[in-house]
């Protein structure tokens, strides 16, 4: 197809417009990804000028590194725990917020605020809530339960951070579900009412299947977010106690920027990327978005 002079000029302008963002993406995203993949085959230490090619040695070492295996386990526990609860909670919250409630705007705002608050700030607040003399233990003491220091106890630390994450992200995903819910025609519920469906049946048989495309989107984002969890761990527990909250992202950070073993860190990042890729692929294959 031959372009006219005007079309050529339009195309030039269009390329110019996408050129700049493309350049930014390339410099700060695509090139680093490729570079990370590249250095994962080298013993790339920031402090040592000699950076020898080591082939798959970094990968072999990773799977012999007990901390890395713990990090994989922690990341999986974290993801499997957070994704379903936060998705279900977001849907239920959206369903409630979609009813004609008094003070609905206030509740929507209240649930959404954690999502727009800096994660460092919420993390610091929760460090206090979870501490031995903190709010949680005070509330528990009112009903006669004596709590622990949740972030320094290896058996509770990871779950405490999971709970925080569920609280901060449910409100964010609630907004997505709310948009999905509002696009369901009211007449479907009316038809269901006449067909004999009660509130619960309307929720399971109409709402849940109708928001399936949103659920897909939420689960994908939430899976990726959970696999990459870093900031709360960095602020609240630094991977401890005894590596009980070390996740793959935190492991990568530690090796690359604390021990300066960039090649080794890059290799663990590649494994993480492969796991995320695999998880989303599985989801796409077995739980497709299925827009009606």
């Amino acid at each position, binding site marked *: 197809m031959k372009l006219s002079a005007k079309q050529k000029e339009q195309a030039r302008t269009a390329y110019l417009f996408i050129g700049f963002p493309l350049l930014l993406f390339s410099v700060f995203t695509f090139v680093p990804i490729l570079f990370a993949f590249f250095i994962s085959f080298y013993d790339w230490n920031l402090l040592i000028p000699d950076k020898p090619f080591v082939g798959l040695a970094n990968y072999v070492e990773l799977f012999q590194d007990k901390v890395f295996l713990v990090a994989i386990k922690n990341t999986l526990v974290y993801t499997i725990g957070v994704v379903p609860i936060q998705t279900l909670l977001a849907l239920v919250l959206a369903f409630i917020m979609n009813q004609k409630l008094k003070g609905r705007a206030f509740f929507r705002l209240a649930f959404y605020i954690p999502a727009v608050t800096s994660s460092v700030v919420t993390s610091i607040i929760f460090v206090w809530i979870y501490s031995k003399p903190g709010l949680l233990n005070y509330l528990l003491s009112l009903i006669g339960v004596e709590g622990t220091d949740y972030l320094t106890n290896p058996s509770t630390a990871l779950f405490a951070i999971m709970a925080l994450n569920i609280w901060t992200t449910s409100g964010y995903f609630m907004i997505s579900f709310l948009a999905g819910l509002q696009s369901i025609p009211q007449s479907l519920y009316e038809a269901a*009412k006449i067909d004999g*469906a009660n509130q619960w049946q309307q929720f399971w048989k109409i709402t849940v*299947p109708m928001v399936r495309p949103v659920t897909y989107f939420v689960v994908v984002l939430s899976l990726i977010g959970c696999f990459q969890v870093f900031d709360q761990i960095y602020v609240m527990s630094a991977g401890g106690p005894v590596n009980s909250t070390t996740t793959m992202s935190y492991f990568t950070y530690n090796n690359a920027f604390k021990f300066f073993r960039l090649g080794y860190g890059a290799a663990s990042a590649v494994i993480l990327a492969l796991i995320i890729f695999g998880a989303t692929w599985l989801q796409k294959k077995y739980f497709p978005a299925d827009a009606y």
Partner: protein
Amino acid sequence: MANVELKKLKKVYGKDVLAIKEADVFIEDKEFVVLVGPSGCGKSTLLRMIAGLEEISGGDLYIDDARVNDVSPKDRDIAMVFQNYALYPHMTVFENMAFGLKLRKYPKAEITQRVEEAAKVLGLTPYLDRRPKEMSGGQRQRVAIGRALVRQPKVFLFDEPLSNLDAKLRVQMRIEIKRLHKQLQATMIYVTHDQIEAMTMGDKIVVLKDGIVQQVDSPMNLFNNPANKFVAGFIGSPSMNFLQGEIEKTEELEFVSGTVRFGIPNELNLHDKLSPYIGQPVTFGFRPEYLYDKAKEKSKQLSVDMDIIIDVTEPVGSEAYNYFHFKGQEDLTFCFRSDSAYDYQSNETITVGLDVARLRFFDVETENRIA
């Protein structure tokens, strides 16, 4: 099957927005009743009140002599067909139709049997495994009807079910719904804004305007004996012509409006009703089909000669709608229906007469029919 009775049924939105003002309608068992009126007249609200989807603000609603004001929709034993079909997009045609029965815990074999029967009646058998989005508008509407059918409810409610279909399909579905009504012998309540649909389908028509029931009657009675000017103008297409004038008494009663003047023969028994209006303004109504070209029509008793001038003609096949004004009254346009073979031309003057048996008069203030 059941009768439905509306006793002073009232709907108020918020504090003072009156949607339905004391509707009194009795719908007999097996009757096909059409609620008709212009947009915003409250016809859908009334239907939704019967369905239980709108709360009733006042009055009583009876289905089969049981008061159902506070009964939930699922327990009223009704089924409804929605304007936008309201099919569940994530379910197949079979599942859509079976949904209500499943919720009511019917045995599987019976569900299958009922759905298959309904599908056969509606010609949906080959589509039972399809999803709604894979079907045309007409097929979707059939599924919506099927969903109502399998429930075998006491009362069927239809909320403008054909308005999303094209003209040809609408006529087809109209006939099909009528056929279903005959076959099922069920009570059906049908909402439409289309008066042709109302006239062709209803055993009885309820005409609504501004939330007030104007008249409840058979289609032909509405056409021939409208209760007021609104019903007269709403029923019939093209609608009735109205001309404001005065009743004068000479040897007989006469209607006079500018250059238009004709006598009302004594034998029509209209004199008793019109006498109080002598010297008073009245609205005269005549249907486009009851005006005749005197040169062509000899058999009917027609009024005195009147000269009209054709402005525009609209041939619509076998007949034509001719828009005209009376000679000497250019500012008022009326419609006159004729055989299209007469082929009237613009600016042509013809002499017409009114069928005197079809003269209708309305009170100017109350708009109620006088005679």
